[in-house]
């Protein structure tokens, strides 16, 4: 009876409530996300005449991306660097997540806090920190010379793709640990005991029980690292040198110096297509591991 009162008396106010509660999120998602992304797609199909929305419809921007080797090279390089960063981050993060899930005991909350804390410190400053580590007059060179291992400073650290990979793997480490930890934490301990009772050696149990069950977390971690990395332009600019130009740098320069917004938009659409492919592959892999359970 009381439910009748609740649903009948303030019918208008219930509608008002729904409207008010859906309004902020609705505005943001439909206007700022869907409409804004639609604008990028629209602009990518326009010619550049210096005006805001370009002139005439054309596939020319995409033809340039596909036919000019410069853009191919940079896109491929971005994929390779982002792939290496993802691989390095996930592989180094996995044992940490494993320790957190199975061995940390009472230190677990403290350790979880410690591994997530760097995420809340400025990204720009973390990249800058790597620049002072790797520079010619930097920490690594001066430490090597002070300790007598090296006699001359070397230029080999800074302005290399390897510097980009290390810096980004450091910057996105907390992103990788958390999803893997969450996946490992949901594995029932009884599964491991069962494996051991059935005679599986620890490594076999890990390979056949733990690893497959943690794959959703690994895939989530890989996505969370790959997506921001592939479009990054700050780290390549600060520690990468000209040999590490990534597609984010090209997009940024189209909206800045080059002032060819439609072409920048076309490059962005290509990045989103690449990410879409990666997401679909990850989805497929996720389903495959899901069906094994």
């Amino acid at each position, binding site marked *: 009876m*009381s*439910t009748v009162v*609740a649903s009948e008396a*303030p019918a208008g*106010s219930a509608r008002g*409530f*729904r409207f008010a*509660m859906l309004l*902020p*999120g609705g505005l*943001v*998602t*439909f206007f*700022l*996300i*869907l*409409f*804004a*992304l639609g*604008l990028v797609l629209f602009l990518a199909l326009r010619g550049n005449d210096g005006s805001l929305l370009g002139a005439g419809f054309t596939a020319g921007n995409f033809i340039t991306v596909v036919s000019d080797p410069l853009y191919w090279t940079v896109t491929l390089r971005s994929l390779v660097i982002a792939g290496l960063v993802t691989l390095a981050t996930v592989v*180094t993060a996995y044992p*940490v997540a494993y*320790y957190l899930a199975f*061995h940390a005991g009472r230190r677990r909350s403290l350790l979880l*806090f*410690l*591994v997530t804390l*760097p995420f*809340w*410190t*400025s*990204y*720009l*400053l973390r990249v*800058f*920190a*790597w620049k*002072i580590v790797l520079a010619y*007059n930097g*920490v690594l*060179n001066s*430490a090597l010379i*002070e300790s007598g291992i090296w006699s001359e400073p070397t230029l080999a650290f800074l302005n290399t793709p390897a510097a980009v990979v290390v810096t980004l793997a*450091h910057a996105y*480490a907390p992103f990788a640990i958390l999803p893997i930890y969450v996946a490992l934490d949901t594995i029932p301990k009884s599964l491991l005991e069962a494996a051991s009772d059935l005679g599986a050696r*620890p490594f076999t149990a890990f390979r056949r029980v733990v690893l497959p069950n943690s794959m959703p977390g690994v895939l989530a971690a890989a*996505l*969370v690292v790959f997506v*921001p990395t*592939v*479009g*990054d332009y700050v780290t390549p600019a600060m520690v990468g040198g000209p040999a590490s130009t990534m597609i984010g740098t090209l*997009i*940024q320069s189209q909206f800045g110096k080059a002032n060819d*917004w439609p072409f*920048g*938009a076309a490059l962005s659409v290509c*990045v*989103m297509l690449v990410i879409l492919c990666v*997401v679909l592959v990850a989805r497929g892999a996720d389903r495959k591991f899901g069906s094994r359970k």
Partner: protein
Amino acid sequence: MSAARRDDGRGWLGVYVLAYLVFLYLPVLLIPLFSFNNSIQAAFPLQGFTLEWYATLYGNPALSGALLNSLVIGVVAAAGATLCGITVSYMDLYGRSPLAATISAISRLPILIPGVIVGISLLILVNLIGLGPSRIAIVLGHILVALPTTVVIMRSRFAAIPKTIREAALDLGASDWTTFRRVMLPLSLPAIVSAFMLAFLISFDEFIVVFFLAGTEPTLPLYIWSQLRFPRSLPTVMALGTAILAVSVIIAGIAEILRHRGLSTARRTAPTSPA
């Protein structure tokens, strides 16, 4: 024997985790270290102790302007992102409509969009509506960047509140509004504060999106970026960075404690909830 082998593995794993933490923290800790070093060059051996770089932070109008800008934008963007996070996740869990579920799904989409693309899509949008790069544009950008975080935090909080509490309030004749305002909001207050603080930190540190949306008044990360080009100003940047690190760590710590407190009260109230 197998127990011994397991212990052995655990020991190595512990060493690895320790080494990993060193890798995580060592580069970041160089910034405070060199901020007290009496040399322009960030290299070993350390020269002498100085507070000179901290002194140069005072009375710098460009810096204080950027700081004020970042604070105002951070508070407004965090408020917007938290409001959206609360309403989106609440309607997703209790609204029972496809529209609410769609909004919730799209609101977590920005995780799958690189910052550079969030930046340019909003740049096109704000130019189209005649706003142009401005503080409002930055606020919109930061709401988008923080939105997935606030939605995830609020969603897990609302999901942890026993369903019976909301049903009891509705059964006792409270309207949707009253239930939301008098029951659900107070119960999720720690998570709301935590979401707000984390959204503020995200906005305060964000650079990749803001780069495209800033008009004439830079935020703090943009100010730092502009200073990184000049080797002479690097020690000052490190002093500034140390101050930012300290404040970020404190805010993140408080947010973490609040989140934990929220979760543990949820667990404690669960069995005796209707009282």
